[in-house]
């Protein structure tokens, strides 16, 4: 493995960007390292430069902002569970992030890293997409924001440009009478990778009618899917049986999965609908719907 690997601990995002932008060799950001170090050990990656962002001020902070929450790119997933306001506002997101790996992994892994690793089965990503989260990106040409669903470009690839790094994930303020939920199917009870996953976030009115919804699927295509037809299927309803059937059908129709040892195409398509229905039920109950 890389005998010549340089290890840098910049104290500002600007320094980190400069290091990443100027590097002619292979450069990676180190946050939790739970993907990066495994790949290095396996010989899949041989970085010339690793830029550890954990010493950048604010990078490990969860901030309540005027527009919601800002979760620094180096916040470990286990820290999310310790922020009562965040858990109350976005329980689905916090639960999704804490389905990643074991307690040991959760003590290190970050949502930003989960997103940048760009696995289609990343647990936190469908929940973030359903929540309408955005990433803040620092780069050589300044800062920009991207919707979470626009970050992955394919399996293991993102739309970040050379020198760009994610500094935070922004979650919107929770609207009144809203709820989110994330569910995944795995053949075991813990410590596994999603075969299919689904995040749902919805808002209801005083009568329990859904006014807004976002539905996202994971592990059924090369990237996370934001399924607009699934949201349409439940907006204007009280999540009755017919709405749930349409939601499930829209989710199944959106799937473009592969066959592999963890699940077949047929199975994934079927289960996507089942999970969407169940996640919507939980989100609806969390919004205060009956």
């Amino acid at each position, binding site marked *: *493995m*890389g*005998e*010549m*690997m*340089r*290890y840098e*601990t910049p104290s500002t995002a600007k320094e980190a960007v400069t290091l990443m932008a100027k590097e002619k060799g292979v450069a990676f950001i*180190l946050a939790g*390292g*739970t993907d990066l*170090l*495994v790949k*290095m*050990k*396996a010989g899949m990656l041989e970085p010339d430069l*690793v830029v*550890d962002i*954990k010493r950048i001020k604010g990078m490990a902070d969860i901030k309540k902002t005027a527009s919601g929450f800002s979760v620094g790119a180096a916040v*470990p997933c*286990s820290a999310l569970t310790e922020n009562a306001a965040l858990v109350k506002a976005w329980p689905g997101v916090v639960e999704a992030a804490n389905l990643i*790996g*074991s*307690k*040991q*992994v959760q*003590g*290190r892994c970050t949502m930003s890293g989960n997103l940048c690793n760009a696995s289609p089965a990343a647990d936190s990503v469908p929940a973030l997409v359903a929540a309408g989260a955005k990433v803040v990106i620092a780069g050589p040409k300044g800062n920009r924001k991207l919707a979470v669903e626009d970050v992955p470009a394919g399996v293991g690839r993102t739309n970040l440009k050379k020198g760009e790094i994610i500094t935070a994930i922004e979650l919107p303020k929770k609207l009144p009478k809203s709820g989110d939920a994330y569910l995944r199917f795995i053949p075991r009870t*813990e*410590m596994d990778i999603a075969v299919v996953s689904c995040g749902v976030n919805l808002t209801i009115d005083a009568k329990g009618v859904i006014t807004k919804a976002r539905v996202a699927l994971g592990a059924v295509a090369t990237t996370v899917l934001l399924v607009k037809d699934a949201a349409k299927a439940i907006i204007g309803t009280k999540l009755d049986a017919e709405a749930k059937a349409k939601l499930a059908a829209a989710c199944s129709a959106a799937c473009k999965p592969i066959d592999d040892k963890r699940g077949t195409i047929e199975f994934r398509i079927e289960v996507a609908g089942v999970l969407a229905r169940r996640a919507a039920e939980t989100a609806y109950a969390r919004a205060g719907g009956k």
Partner: protein
Amino acid sequence: MSSHVKTTINGDAVEFVCANDESLLDVLRNRIGLTGAKEGCGTGDCGACSVILDGRLVCSCLVLGAEMNGKKVETIEGMANGAVLHPLQQHFIDGAALQCGICTPGFLMAAQALLRKNPDPTEEEIRFGLAGNLCRCTGYDKIVRAVQAAAKEMRG
């Protein structure tokens, strides 16, 4: 290339030089001489290398030694109070919650992290809390019971 690191391990100031791509586990075992943390898988799946880093349970195989400047590391070697075993250690022995023992330091560190956060866990919470630690000998039941017994004793 290498890093010169000043850190705290089990309350002691420690200084070491390590290769930039060297894991904390390798530093502990090969440079500091703390061989309690074990390498089972080296990929964060088995938990045999569990240590507590700045209060959080982590797999030391998935941490770089170079990251340790100014950090606080707790390993199994710091668990007993001199010759007096920690209640978790004592109950693992009393309850025969081990056979070959390779996984035991990791289980003890994970159990300690769990009980600090949750002094009165349910059986289910213990099983989820220890799900990142693999044991191929015991079938886990004796481990769960030992943690329950230690938690009871520690609550007083």
